[in-house]
């Protein structure tokens, strides 16, 4: 607990600081309760709720990112053993990365990074 104990203390401290700002504001602001308003639409009347299924046109990038993000799970431990294991560790990791980069190049040629 000596390592992550301070993290808990620090987290509690940060939350307490944010709460302090809120309490201070509640004490001095014009009226404590929030004012209910329409969302801003440049002066036009609101006609529907904005929460909706958003058209994420870059979804292909998210898939590619997931592949690399899983790769980071290997790469962080890998940095600890490179000096011990020597050249084979480097070769194996970069062979794996080369496969992923090939996917990036393919996705690039297919236009995954341009969606407008």
């Amino acid at each position, binding site marked *: 607990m*000596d*390592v*992550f*104990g*301070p*993290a808990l*203390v*620090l*987290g509690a*401290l*940060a*939350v307490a*600081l*944010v709460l302090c*700002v*809120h309490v*201070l*504001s509640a004490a*001095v*602001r*014009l*009226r404590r309760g*929030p*004012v*209910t*308003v*329409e*969302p*801003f*639409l440049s002066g036009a009347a609101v006609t529907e*709720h*904005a*929460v*909706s299924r*958003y058209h*994420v046109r*870059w979804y292909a*990038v998210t898939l*590619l*990112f997931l592949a*690399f993000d899983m790769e*980071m799970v290997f*790469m*962080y431990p890998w*940095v*600890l053993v*490179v*000096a011990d294991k*020597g050249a084979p560790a*480097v070769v194996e*990791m*970069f062979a794996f*990365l080369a496969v992923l*980069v090939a996917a*990036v190049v393919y996705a*690039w040629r297919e236009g995954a*990074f*341009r*969606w*407008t």
Partner: protein
Amino acid sequence: MSGVAPPWAVLLVPALLIVLGYGAAAGTAALRARAAGAAPVSGLTAPARESARLLVQRRRTIPGTDTLLWRLGGALVPVAAVLAALVIPLGSTAVSDPSVGVVWFNAMEVVVWAALWMLGWGANSVWGLVGGYRFLIQGLSYELPHMFALTAAALGAGSLRVGDVVAAQEQVWFAVLMPAAFVVYLVSALAMAFWGPFGTPVGRDLAGGVAAELSGVDLLVLRAGRYVFLAAVAAMAVPLFLGGGAGPLLPGWVWTLVKTAGVLALLVWLGHRLPAVRMDRFTEVGWVVLVPVTLLQVLAVAVYVLVR
């Protein structure tokens, strides 16, 4: 190398971050004042005056908001910033120096992705919705080069412990040894703090984006949190690339602060001098240029580690 900090050092982390964050805000205001043709000195009090305005202002709510997400999102930004700073050593001692310090920083910094999306989605406003998703694609574009830059530094030290990364720079700073990783880290620092050229998630063209419907103390916490976050990522550049507290004459903790202030000043100046980057154009650069560049950097460092 890394000693154990006394218990009161926990208090020092948020205090220093707030001072540095205030400095960044005041510096920004001073640069603005100069551009407006006024005396830059007026920038010194500008953040305090702005805070006074937001403290007094009422909060708003919109019918149909997801209140939990909306109110939590803004508060997450400063909390994530303070938690990320847990592993940053001041001089030679950090509050905590876990064996996975670099990964801890990485994990805390990614919390902001969730925070901004929650803000944008929770507001039930078109501006927020677009801004929140803008930050997600921004994250998808900067995060991989950023993680490879972190990896390069950790690889140079053969450890994920921040204290070891500092110790490994006794001979030569990693900023010199791996310049590409350092530059990419600075770019991603701007991007993760949605600051300057990467500020489009809260951009003027979206009437404030994820912050478009925030007012009063909620807006204050978000804006202050962003500066604190900027200070935290600037501070992390010091142990990763600039030799931590190493330096002549002065004690280590002074050097850490001087170097942090230097990096922070550079980030603030870049924010002043550059127009916004459109994410639909930057994504391609991030993946096709920055990812290969940082990977080659990691390869170069790996070869260096083997022949050393």
